């Protein structure tokens, strides 16, 4: 066995996983004539702590251990999984997955196992398994103290902190092996403030694939400042008018627009089935020439960064729209084979209990020619979106929404009064066409975004420079 293979297999060795077990699983998986198979071993240890009513007085922890086995025949998938890593249990799960094919085995030997070299985008300097619970507690207390100190109207504070160390080992029937260690951490601050008998609550969070070193003083200060400001400004905020108007998206988390308006629609499974509004638009102009949108696995330490996707494919920067022209879909192995292209490293899954699907990583728009100031100054009457809670899309009709938690009314080129709690709705391709100004201030948001699809949640990042959309429907009441 090569040194690289021994190193890759070492981690799961403690659970009894070795090369014979893996080979037996792959052989069982292909025993009914499947084209290809892969196994995905996962071990994930997560901890979280909660601060409420002044004390860090609750904790959660969870261990996930198991293996998922997938068998492919053409575009068809058979999938089985088990938490029990004994050879017999793993073989049974493999036989279950094998049932997608119903013929005799094609007697395809599994070649020599070769470990893929992968990137190192999130080396944790202080990994979480080396951090005692007692070391984490002061982080939450510091955040609480600063939140109370920031504004006397803040009456209740909760802080939620979580960290995770994950390991995945993937081996496929071509003999490809990939092993990755995947840290993750997130801190969420939520504030309730009172002002003359009125109450408002809001919060903020920061997240990344990193260890304890992630939590610099500056980061925590920014988290507190933003969460408190976003809460207290709600007392002055009103509802925007209702109807169609120009919308300016602030730099950073506005990338949610890209995620919903185009990202999901470019996931190749929807296009392969012909059900996406973007099916058949490859190579065509779909936005202004200064619009370039990417889906990027590489931002160092970002929540949506990955070293390798969950099928063992290399993951890099994928340009979706270049100078306004649609370049590619987001592929997993199945869709890449279907379209006869190389996978883009977008095959991701929530855990070993799920088969991978084409999913986004860090999705953002590159800088454009305008300044944020001139973009705001250009709007006679419209709204400016500061931060967001959630979004959703209908893949085929293209209608998508995002929920603006804080924003501003723009009147005569100036931000005049704060607005809150409003849903915006638009149609993906129409909104892309209507992006008519793009700023030069790209920011990738460091919030704890999670994307849901087919019942699977995966961590993602998103980013945006300040951008103007000529018209969207604002769900206000004015």
């Amino acid at each position: 066995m090569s040194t690289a293979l021994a190193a890759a297999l070492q981690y799961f060795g403690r659970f009894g996983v070795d090369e014979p077990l893996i080979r037996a699983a792959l052989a069982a998986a292909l025993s009914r004539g499947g084209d290809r198979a892969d196994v995905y071993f996962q071990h994930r240890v997560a901890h979280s702590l909660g601060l409420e009513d002044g004390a860090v007085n609750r904790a959660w922890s969870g261990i996930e251990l198991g293996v998922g086995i997938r068998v492919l025949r053409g575009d068809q998938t058979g999938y089985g999984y088990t938490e029990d890593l004994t050879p017999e249990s793993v073989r049974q799960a493999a036989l279950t997955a094998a049932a997608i094919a119903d013929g005799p085995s094609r007697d395809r030997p599994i070649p020599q196992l070769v470990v893929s070299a992968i990137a190192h985008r999130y080396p944790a300097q202080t990994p979480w398994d080396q951090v005692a619970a007692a070391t984490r507690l002061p982080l939450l207390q510091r955040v609480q103290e600063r939140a109370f100190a920031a504004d006397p109207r803040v009456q209740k504070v909760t802080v939620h902190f979580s960290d995770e160390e994950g390991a995945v080992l993937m081996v496929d029937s071509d003999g490809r092996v990939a092993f990755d260690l995947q840290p993750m951490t997130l801190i969420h601050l939520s504030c309730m403030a009172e002002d003359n008998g009125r109450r408002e609550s809001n919060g903020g969070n920061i997240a990344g694939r990193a260890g304890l070193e992630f939590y610099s003083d500056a980061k925590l200060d920014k988290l507190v400042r933003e969460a408190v400001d976003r809460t207290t400004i709600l007392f002055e905020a009103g509802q925007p008018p209702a109807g169609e108007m120009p919308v300016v998206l602030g730099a950073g988390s506005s990338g949610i627009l890209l995620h919903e308006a185009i990202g999901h629609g470019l996931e190749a499974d929807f296009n392969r089935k012909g059900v996406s509004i973007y099916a058949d638009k490859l190579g065509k102009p779909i936005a202004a020439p200064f619009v370039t949108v990417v889906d990027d696995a590489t931002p160092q330490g970002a929540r949506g960064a990955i070293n390798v996707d969950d099928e063992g494919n290399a993951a890099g920067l994928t340009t979706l729209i270049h100078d306004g022209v649609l370049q590619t879909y987001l592929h997993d192995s199945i869709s890449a084979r279907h379209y006869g292209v190389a996978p883009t490293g977008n095959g991701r899954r929530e855990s070993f209990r799920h088969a991978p699907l084409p999913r986004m990583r860090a999705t953002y728009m590159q800088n454009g020619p305008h300044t944020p100031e001139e973009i705001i100054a250009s709007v006679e009457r419209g709204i400016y979106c500061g931060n967001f809670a959630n979004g959703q899309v209908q893949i085929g009709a293209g209608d998508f929404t995002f929920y603006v938690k804080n924003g501003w009314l723009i009147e005569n080129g100036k931000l005049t009064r704060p607005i809150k709690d409003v849903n915006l709705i638009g149609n993906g391709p129409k909104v892309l066409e209507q992006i008519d100004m793009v700023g030069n201030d790209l920011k990738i948001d460091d919030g704890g975004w999670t994307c849901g699809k087919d019942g699977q949640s995966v961590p993602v990042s998103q980013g945006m420079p300040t951008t103007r959309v000529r018209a969207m429907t604002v769900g206000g009441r004015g």
Partner: protein
Amino acid sequence: MRDIAEKVVARAQAHGAQQAAASAYQVREVSVQWRDGAVEKLTEATTRGVGVELYVDGRYASVSTSDLRAEALDTFLSDAVAMTRALAPDPFRALPDPQLYAGQSALDLQLADPDYGALTAVARRELAQQLEHAARNTPEGHRILSVTTSVSDSHSQSWRVHSDGFAGEKAGTSYWLGAEVSVQDADGRRPEDACYAGARWRGDVPDPQGIGEEATRRTLSRLGSAKPPSGQLTLVVDARAAGRVVSSLLGGLSAAGWQQKRSFLEGKLGAQIGNDLLDLTDDPLVVRGLGSRRFDGEGMASRPMPLFSAGVLRHGFVDTYYGKKLQMAPTTGRLSNLRWQLGAKDREALLRDVGDGIFVTGFLGGNANGTTGDFSWGIQGFAIRGGQLAEPIGEANISGNHLTLWPALLAVGNDPYRYSALRTPTLVFGGVNVAGR
């Protein structure tokens, strides 16, 4: 698995926990996804794990693992107890008052189909195929781009054991059929819609024919949808869609939200929240109900609990912990099934009564501010003109506040949606802000 729950409690106590409660579970899930004439994905697995709540020296933690090897479990519990000791004490944490364990209903809730396991792999594929056939074999079936159908079933069992003597076992089955249809619109859009139905017993699941046809009918009805004009309108919310509005209201009933003062219903027990028509009860004892149970997640015996009676807020979801913090008697921490005081009219009659307005068949995104009760949601549906459904509408939002929405509840239908534990009927609201063009 019951042995595992018992062993976990015993080992947690051996490691220093004064009290512990463990839930072990095992779930078998099988699903077939079928698309355009062939199986797309088969998934089959039995998953299991154990979770335990630890009470150690006045401190609390909740932990779970799927690594059930004996030596791994023991290390896991010893680490978890040590982690709990590092926390601040919390005087409000304890197992429930054991008196609340007593009085479980003797009713046979029939949550598990005794014939589970009889459905073969071949039969699942046939059902998936029938769903597709039904969806395609409709008058305008030629406009269909793609049909995806699904057939899934599960059998779940769980065992809960407390250090104070409580022990309970649950078992349940479910069967679901679904069809999703995409069609080509004139302007390049590809509207999709779906129909799902399920039940705890296989014999209660409706025929695949009706499900497939309904999915196509709903999708075709989306063709040519356009933005409605903005304004204040009467809204008729389809029984199937109304769960979105209702669950947002029920979000205000959590005792955690009351204690943290992040609920628009905080301090409003006994107050008039809606008009007389807002009348619903949390009913855990519905035979074969999707949310039914004899005891809740803390082991407390389940019984029906009025939430709103003639518009007055009667009870909220109070678990042991927040009950102690608020000095309120615990009820239960989580919703089971809803039982509505139903109206006399069906959807068609309600549409006729309304005359002009919007019929909402689905929501798209949006959210609510749980502290203030403000909401803003994307909607799709149809214009209502002269008491009849007219052109399809989309790309619109509604917004308002729960505290003014429910007093404007004009009517409740007689048609609870069977395929959700919320069992929402058609709901009619007056004067809702609609933002379109």
